[in-house]
């Protein structure tokens, strides 16, 4: 695929990609570091994952685990410097981590769109929402102003903004938080992207609005046939949306698997601890004791060792454990207890909520 290939060609590329079982997005050994005054901070450390066309992948983890940085490193939205991104990002058969800034700009917004956490600040307060959506369209497509305007109004209407043609000329501050996020979604969909990266899009909204936005995203996913990479710390949202789940902790992938595996057969002590915080799994709302390790000087061995109840001396040695098979072929866990010399039995027995009897 080249920078000036047409949409048809791109679709054809995507179609052949599906036939050869090539995922839409394949991230290999993604590492993102920041140069800070206290040394090099490794926010994302050797992370790999894939997203298939039309699939929803959730990256879950507590604040500071590197989820956001990982997704913003895909299209290199992170400023470099101070950031430093290495690794490969294969999108529709092309390594976009190696392509020029110019080519990448075609991908950004054109094929991979973003929706961010805080809609209050994500739009420029000096331009009307209509102007901002039209900009997103006209950067990628050579359409006349009037046609772009018409499409922007259609999109606003589709995402549930009442009286869209009148609201086109309103400024962001004239919209409520939930409406702003709807506008942001409309902006992201303006060019029918193949992948939507949604970074905690409901965190800043109140609970009733949250579920509306999630429903909207699910509907639009079907309509637009796009894959969604969804970042959240909310396991309830994961259960509602995800096909595949990636559990991150301190810049590392701890466990990955289908949504069923993660919720019914959580295998990493960290995943279990996360689930254990949920009330329906018997959590008292106290959270996981302890704090994240220092990202500028991560300890040797497993990053979670200091907070893990199954810790053994071997956990604190060598590199972070590599991902090992847990319960299914596509269900892996980065924990030495699942290795040839480990015994994962006690961990499996400790699965939170195993005595719930319903779900």
């Amino acid at each position: 695929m080249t920078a000036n290939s047409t949409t048809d060609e791109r679709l054809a590329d995507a179609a052949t990609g599906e036939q050869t079982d090539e995922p839409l997005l394949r991230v290999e050994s993604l590492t993102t570091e920041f140069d800070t005054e206290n040394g090099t901070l490794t926010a994302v450390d050797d992370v790999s994952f894939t997203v298939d066309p039309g699939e929803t992948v959730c990256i879950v983890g507590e604040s500071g685990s590197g989820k956001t940085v990982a997704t913003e490193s895909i299209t290199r939205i992170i400023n470099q410097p101070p950031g430093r991104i290495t690794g490969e990002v294969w999108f529709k058969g092309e390594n976009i981590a190696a392509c020029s800034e110019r080519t990448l700009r075609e991908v950004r917004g054109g094929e991979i769109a973003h929706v961010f956490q805080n809609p209050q600040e994500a739009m420029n307060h000096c331009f009307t929402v209509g102007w901002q959506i039209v900009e997103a369209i006209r950067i990628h497509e050579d359409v006349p102003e009037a046609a772009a305007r018409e499409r922007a109004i259609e999109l606003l209407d589709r995402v549930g903004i009442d009286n869209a043609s009148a609201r086109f000329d309103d400024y962001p501050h004239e919209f409520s938080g939930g409406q702003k996020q709807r506008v942001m979604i409309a902006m992201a969909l303006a060019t029918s992207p193949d992948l939507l990266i949604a970074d905690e899009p409901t965190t800043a909204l109140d609970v009733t609005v949250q579920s509306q936005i999630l429903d909207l995203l699910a509907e639009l996913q079907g309509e637009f046939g796009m894959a969604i990479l969804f970042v959240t710390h909310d396991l309830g949202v994961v259960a509602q949306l995800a096909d595949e789940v990636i559990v991150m902790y301190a810049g590392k992938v701890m466990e990955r698997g289908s949504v069923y595996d993660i919720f019914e057969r959580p295998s990493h002590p960290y995943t279990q601890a996360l689930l254990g915080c949920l009330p329906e799994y018997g959590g008292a709302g106290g959270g996981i004791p302890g704090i994240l390790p220092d990202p500028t000087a991560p300890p040797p061995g497993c990053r979670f060792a200091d907070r893990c109840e199954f810790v053994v001396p071997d956990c604190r040695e060598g590199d972070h454990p590599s991902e090992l098979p847990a319960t299914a072929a596509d269900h892996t866990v980065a924990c030495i207890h699942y290795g040839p010399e480990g015994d994962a039995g006690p961990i499996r027995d400790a699965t939170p909520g195993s005595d719930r009897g319903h779900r």
Partner: protein
Amino acid sequence: MGLLRYILARTAWAVAVTFIIVTITFLLIALAPDPNISQAATQAALQGGDPTEAAQREAEMRGLDQPLHIRYIDFLQGVYTLEWGWSDNRAQPVTEALLEGIYYTAQYSIPWTILTIIIGPIVGLYSAANMYSWKDHLATGFAFAGWAIPNFFFALILVLIFSVWLNLFPLSYDPSAPVFSLQNVHQLVLPVFVLVTGSIGAIMRVSRNESAEFQNAAFMKTAKAKGVSPLRAYALHVMRPTLVPLSTTLVGQILVIFLGSSLLVEIVFGIPGLGRITFDALINQDTNLILGATLLFTFIAVMGNLVEDIVFTILDPRISYDDR
């Protein structure tokens, strides 16, 4: 229509402000001894006449024997009908003298104002985009230097170097040069340069600091994620919000330079503009002309503030026009 009402209200307020200033000016003059009366009295005494009688006659001739409120109304009428009196020193009506001054002042004021408005924000934005690099330090150093050096002193140094020593620019200003001629451009290079360096510093600093804030705003991440190029992101997404706080500094700063520094710069370069006329009127105690110049500068300042208020409100869509 909120905006129209807001502008009308602001304009009415500006008129009220000029009215207050005119009244204060009148009171100051009414309270101060009139030099013409004491001069008439001295004259009479020297010629053997009655100084008291001569003073009274002079006062009557100038209408000073009228009650204060009548004189006040006359004065107001004069101010608002542009009957600003006769300049004894220049032997012409005050308004005519001021118009002549504006003709010359505008020839260099319009260029430096335009240059400052264009260059200042662009350099500030460039500085912010390259923050803490040598380019930023160079621009910042330039801004502070221009800001710190008194304009008239800088003008003197430039005249000494470029006109006296290097002979690159004319030493004296030729008022007869046609406005749109190379000769005129040539002789206005130094004054325009001095005033641009003097005014641009504050504007560069404000645009640098404001755009530094906006270039890291969340909406810049959105713009980048949309595929907006860096140039477009800076020129539109950063520049536009920067203009809001900048507009207040811009008008204020330009007024300060216009009202204060122009006067001294005109004297250094020998330009017969408003500043020079005011200076001569002060030296020669030409009361009517001083008054006229003061009123003119006051009106310009009031107008500038009015423009600033309106521009600020139009630029920031979040400001509501209602209840103001």
